[in-house]
């Protein structure tokens, strides 16, 4: 009797590019993105799905990529922080983070941006409460969220 399947081919679109790679079936999506694809902008902060530093978009929805296996993303369309400004021209949201000092160490920033971008996509003019709800799954230990909330509100204006 054959043993359990321990590796599988994952094919998906990431930041507009097609990738296809055989990976261990137990590999987390975040480690696939970081270690196998070398897209290190997506971060790991907690291992338990609390911190949101690994937030990406899967088929347009914000998802914590440490809470998914790579094989579960097979056939999907993924966007990471590297896909926000592929030509280096910062988006309105990224510029607002810079101008409002919404980041200090910058470790939570990629996940924070991806959560905020998803919010603005579905709700272009959110209230402050809606902004806070949208990023409640993203922990920042540096800023107290004050300037992050300001930046997202500014980007929505």
């Amino acid at each position, binding site marked *: 009797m054959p043993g359990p399947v321990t590796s599988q081919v994952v094919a998906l679109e990431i930041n507009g590019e097609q990738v296809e790679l055989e990976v261990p079936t137990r590999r987390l999506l975040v480690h696939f993105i970081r270690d196998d694809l070398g897209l290190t902008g997506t971060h790991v*902060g907690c291992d338990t799905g609390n911190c949101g530093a690994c937030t990406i978009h899967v088929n347009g929805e914000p998802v914590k990529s440490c809470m998914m296996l790579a094989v579960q993303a097979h056939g999907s369309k993924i966007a990471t922080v590297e896909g926000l400004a592929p030509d280096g021209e910062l988006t309105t949201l990224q510029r607002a983070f810079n101008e409002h000092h919404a980041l200090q160490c910058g470790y939570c920033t*990629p996940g924070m941006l991806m959560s905020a971008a998803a919010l603005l996509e579905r709700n272009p003019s959110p209230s402050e409460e809606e902004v806070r709800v949208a990023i409640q799954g993203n922990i920042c230990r540096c800023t107290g969220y004050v*300037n992050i909330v300001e930046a997202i509100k500014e980007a929505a204006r």
Partner: protein
Amino acid sequence: MSETTTAPVTTPVVVPGKTWVGDSIPRKEDKRLVQGQGVFFDDVRRHGMGYVHFVRSPYAHAAITRIDVSKAAALEGVYGTLIGEEVAALTDPFFELSVPPGAHIKDYALAVGKVRFQGEPVAAVVATTRELARDAADLVEVDYEPLTAIVDGEQALTEDAAILHEEAGSNVVWEGQFDWGDFDSALAEADKVIKIERLHFHRFSSTPLECSGCVVEYDKGTAQWTIVCNHQMPGVGAIWMGPALRCGIDKLRFVTQDIGGGFGNKICLHPYYVACCLLARKLNRPVQWTEWRSDQHMANAHGNERTFLDVVVPVKADGTMLGFSVKAIDDCGAFPRYEPLGAIIWAQVTPGCYRWENIKVDFTQVVTNKSPVSPNRGYSRMQHLWLTERIVDIVASELDLDPVEVRKKNYIRTEEMPYTTPNGCVYDSGDYARCLDQALSLVDYSGVEARRAEAESRGKLLGLGIGSTLDSGTNNFGQSQLINPDLQFSGNNEVATVKLDIFGELVVTLGTVPQGQGHETTTAQLVADLLGVTPDDVYVRPGHDSFWNSHAGFSGTYASQFAVTGLGAVKGATEMLASQIKRLAAVILGAGDPEAIELAEGHARLRDNPEVALPFMACGAIINANNAGLPAELDDVTLNCRYVFRPHFDVPDKEKKYGNLTLTYATQIHACVVEIDRETGVVEIVDYAAVDDCGNRIHPQIVEGQVHGATAQALGAALHEAFVYDEDGNLLTPNFYDYHVPHALDMPPLKTGYIESASPFTSLGTKGMGEGGGAGIHAVCAAIQNALRPVGKPVVSGSWNPYHRVWELMRDPEESRKLVSVTDL
């Protein structure tokens, strides 16, 4: 006064004569960080790299009777292992800062013979992938004989307490008496004496979002290690690691770029790094270690836990306090590491913000079977300042005095600055009463009673609390000699190198190790002003590399000092460079006197005739690549200038424990309004103001960002965050589920204000200010106590007040009131 939460932004444009210091320009660091292009240690890959996983103790205290790694080593894909016995043979124990008994403690990279806290590493496994290393670690067999766990500082001191470190013969690391002024006379002079039996400052940490780790390579030919990492104080890390690894400091090359938050929690990484160094050498391949979140909570670095016993406060009838005496028991966890420096660091702020002249402290630091501590934002002063603020509020409450008036009566006054404290520290400048007025005005103090009544009608108890703190910055490391007279540390230093390169590039190299403080930006502002260019013209290398040779023994980013030591070094180096450029230009332009040259708009030009100008690019090219025919008087001109900033300190008097321990004192006065639900004890912060005075501000937006962040950490600590252990030494809060840090919905609106009392002791009038968050803990405790006055006047005796503790205070106020007594004299 500012009520805004976002300082205005100035975009750099070239305006002749424009200066940049004081402007909130967009940070230079951000462009890479918002694009996911930062380089954190875990982003670094090396060919053939192995992943390290530590096997950790499930017990808080146990003898190790057997370790067998053979099954793990036999697994395909495992490169190798390391156990405590090998560590004991290949390294020397890390040096201890303490005198005996602490001096006798033996601390190695892995547990040797016994384990002393849950999560202590006992072995390490290296494999081809993270997953495999973890699997292999499960195959390591360790037999333990459990021992009684000591989980409380007072328990550690009892007669029959189990001893953690047999070689020390005691659970005491360090003990000492501090006695300044004349406490007995103060008692004689007092009209009343207030006694507080017990206060407790709890265990928590800033828990940076990026866990600790490193990538270590060993070069066999040169016997040198390269450690790409997130150590925030590599100068001192190397001082620990070199002797342990039996190598010179220069064999340890520390490299950092971006670091995902530090807060002091990344200072004591040397045990893990030494294990990784041994593995890289043993396996002859690069290894990388990334700490798991639960490992960080269990086994990296907590903040110091401190119990205050028998507080005695002599008070005059008018509310003037004459000082205090206290017995402090500091619990540093299983190994001292950076300790017992915490046993003296608090003395930087001995009387807090107050004119208290008679202070007696009996300080004992002990080990317990809990995670070792390390400096944590507000290190050791936060605990002590919480004590001073609790004293003020408890005294005010017991004597029915107004906490605002009591503070103003006892605050050191601005006209008394610079103020010498009873133990010889010199508070450089400040105006605490003015900061308090501003904070009170921001929370509409005059309307508080009306709001209290309105809240009451909704079943809520409203209270206002104040937190006053000082953020003492730029350590005099000579204070270490007050805990161990044989230590050879004193003063402080920091380094910067500024060069003008061949194509006119201005490049700055710092010795500091930033973790979000914006050093690249503030450095560029200062250099731009001194050389007449814009911040965009200045490239500040991100991070730290000890092979840049731009560091010194105390280099790092810690203890609120960059704006003084870091920028002091930048200023020194840039002025050296400016002088060299002028001398070169004077020769080339035939000006004779270098003072006839001015630097502006990227040129060295004649002050009297700006048309005659030499572009910086030409200066760089002449010195570096086209220097034939230069006169001998320019032989020392390199346009590559290294400056070591050293503040002027004396070694403190070891007998009297007297002397200046820090250079600057930033002020934070916070005011907090809470509402407490009578049914549940849930505390909601409904209004909050933080007023900061850090002298001259280089970049107001960065200063305000530090205030926001430090305040958020304080509010989290006061209401939610705690490292809670059960009686067997199991950590009950080892992840972000159980250890609740503030989320966006938890944070109240923060109002900020500032004043600028320039420091007379620093070259830019600046003060370090990143650690001033403790005020939030004090303010929340005070506000809760104030709110609960109508329900039996309970005493807030702990720094951690989640809803269930508040509910307990309401249910049984008398229990807490037993802690306090007032005696009329």
